């Protein structure tokens, strides 16, 4: 629209005005129609191109599966490569996923949410694979939500360290294969929380004082209640009524009114500066710090700490959903992801130990913040495995009451 395209007309001043208005209005309508069309096409494009979608109104933007940058050099996979995966946010390297094939990713915030959706769909969810935490697998298997696995179709299963196979909740790996394990801790803005947080008690104190109204906890019932149990030396798998009562009283009355959010992914939202203090999983915290560096901000402003004196260790697992339509692709994928080279790439992205033999040596030194990935022998002593037991409904009730108390 430069002066070169100038149009000259002879008319009255009023006529010129009308013409100009008419033209600008037409231009406006055309531009807006164009914009609308573009937005519409973009929306169609993204749904068919299987970018990650969000569920349950979560605020996570989802992993950009369709990002084409830095395509992996992994060998192409033979056979079926298209399937639907139901998993946690930012849990798989987009480039690696793209090098495998066409994977549609959908996201959940908690195991409870995933189980409820799969149970509600009764085999018609359309998902081929799901990534639940170990403790939830017996319940899901009993309810007929999971397909039994044929391990002979996953030759790379042998690459897993035996410490991470044949777990109590799935003996003989009938339903699941280890995806990775991780732990829970905190991350805080040192400009606001100036004293170091060393224990869950420090976390609670900071949440009630300097970070009041500015802290978040994980959006899952066991993790929320874990804050109280870990701080007070109670095993978080407790089923004792008096301990659960005390937990409820504390969480609902003392912790909830200070909370800003129940957020399962505060790490990847770190660049937005939403919280001064967050309960967070180690891989998510690491991704957040890496994103800060990418955004040209100072990652030293935020400090990560692993939960103490006790905290959780979780193992998330690849499982095939009952009624899956893309069985071949699912097996192909499990075999692909258990390949040491691929696994190392995935670790570098998501920041969780995948439990393969010698995986620590396979991740190159150029990968930063590795101290947040590997759990030292010393830290091992702090870890407690969770369980789904008779207290589960009670924990969820506490979590719901906490949500109501926080929003009062």
């Amino acid at each position, binding site marked *: 629209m430069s002066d070169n395209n100038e149009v000259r007309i002879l008319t009255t001043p009023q006529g010129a005005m009308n013409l100009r208005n008419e033209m600008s209005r037409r231009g406006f309508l055309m531009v807006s129609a164009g914009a609308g069309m573009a937005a519409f096409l973009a929306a169609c494009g993204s749904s068919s191109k299987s970018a990650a979608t969000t569920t349950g109104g979560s605020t996570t933007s989802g992993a950009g599966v369709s990002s084409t940058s830095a395509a992996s050099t992994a060998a192409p996979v033979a056979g079926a490569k298209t399937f639907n995966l139901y998993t946690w946010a930012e849990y798989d390297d987009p480039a690696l996923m793209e090098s495998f094939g066409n994977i549609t990713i959908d996201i959940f915030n908690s195991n409870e949410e995933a189980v409820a959706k799969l149970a509600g769909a009764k085999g018609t969810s359309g998902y081929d694979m799901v990534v639940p935490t170990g403790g939830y697998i017996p319940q899901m298997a009993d309810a007929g939500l999971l397909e039994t696995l044929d391990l002979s179709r996953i030759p790379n299963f042998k690459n897993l360290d035996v410490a991470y196979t044949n777990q109590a909740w799935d003996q003989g790996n009938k339903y699941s294969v280890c995806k990775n394990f991780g732990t829970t801790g905190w991350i805080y803005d040192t400009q606001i929380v100036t004293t170091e947080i060393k224990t869950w008690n420090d976390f609670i104190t900071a949440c009630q004082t300097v970070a009041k109204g500015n802290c978040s906890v994980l959006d899952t019932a066991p993790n929320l209640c874990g804050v109280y149990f870990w701080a007070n030396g109670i095993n978080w798998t407790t089923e004792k009524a008096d301990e659960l009562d005390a937990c409820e009283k504390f969480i609902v009355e003392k912790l909830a009114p200070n909370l800003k959010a129940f957020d399962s992914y505060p790490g990847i939202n770190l660049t937005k500066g939403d919280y001064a203090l967050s309960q967070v999983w180690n891989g998510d915290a690491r991704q957040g710090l890496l994103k800060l560096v990418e955004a040209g901000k100072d990652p030293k402003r935020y400090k990560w700490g692993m939960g103490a004196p006790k905290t959780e260790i979780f193992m998330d697992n690849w499982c095939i959903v009952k009624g899956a339509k893309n069985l071949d692709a699912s097996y192909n994928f499990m075999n692909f992801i258990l390949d040491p080279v691929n696994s190392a790439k995935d670790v570098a992205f998501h920041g969780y130990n995948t439990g393969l033999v010698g995986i620590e040596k396979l991740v190159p030194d150029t990968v930063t913040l590795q101290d947040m990935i590997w759990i030292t022998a010393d830290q091992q002593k702090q870890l407690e495995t969770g369980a789904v037991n008779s207290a589960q*409904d009670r924990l969820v009730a506490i979590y719901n009451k906490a949500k109501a108390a926080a*929003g009062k």
Partner: protein
Amino acid sequence: MTAVSTPANSPMHARRRLRLPRSILAFPAWFWFLAFFAAPLGLVVYNSFGSKVPQSVGNVSMASPSLGRYREALTGTFFTVFETTLKIAVIGTVLCLVIGFPVAYWLATRASARLKGVMLGLVIIPFWTNFLIRTLSWTIVLSPEGYLSHQLQSWGILGGPIHLLATKTAVQIGVVYNYLPLMIFPLFVALDRLDPSLREASKDLGATPGRTFLQVTGPLAMPGIIAGLLLVYIPLAGDYLTAKILGKAQGNMAGAFIASQVIDAQNLPAGAAMAVILILLILGTILAVGGIGLAIAKMSQIRRSVYVDTGDSI
């Protein structure tokens, strides 16, 4: 095309007798209503009398139907949540009316025909974007590290970053933003249909602009106002995305609480009972407000007629 006068006993006439009843035209609507509204609602009510099988993945037991879930919902935390919801819904609806009415009035009575089209277009444009995306974009605007926060700080208007996200204010802003067009449209339609000569007549008869508005424009626009209020209030009271995204922990509205019962607690009966209570409470508030409105209208009519009577007696 003019040869339509067919003899009485032609085949055309015979065929006309075989016509299906006209109500068949309404069949798609009825079918849709029954299959996708009445039946699911019936299921919700049915499930609300059941109970969750403990330790299961949300199985519902109908072994001993009871009102137990309703009792739990009424004594539990649900009521606190509902109070918050009601407050946000009422304030949001009133704000939509206060903001929407002048816009609709101006569009209908003052704006030129050309401008009218453009302005209505502007009101519609946000609808081209998905509801979720529109709400999510507000998190960028309101974020403490967002451009608004930085800009306001650099201008010296704010001493520190804005802390609007995850507050009730953010939810209130979000719902007004999301539901405002639903208020503007019915208001505009009602006001646009008003014959301008009615306002002129009122003026000619000596009424002040304020009085014309209160006694002519206002009452005639009432159908639009009522439609707008209902269109905004009902979905707003059940909204859960806006509250969840912008309010975070502070935005626990009834809709989110019910979803949590079904999704996190896997307790469909409890969620169903709360949903039924929510429906009844929303209907209750509408009936109460409607009743009060009718009573006020009646009273003002009486007062006006008294006024007219005294005028006559002089």
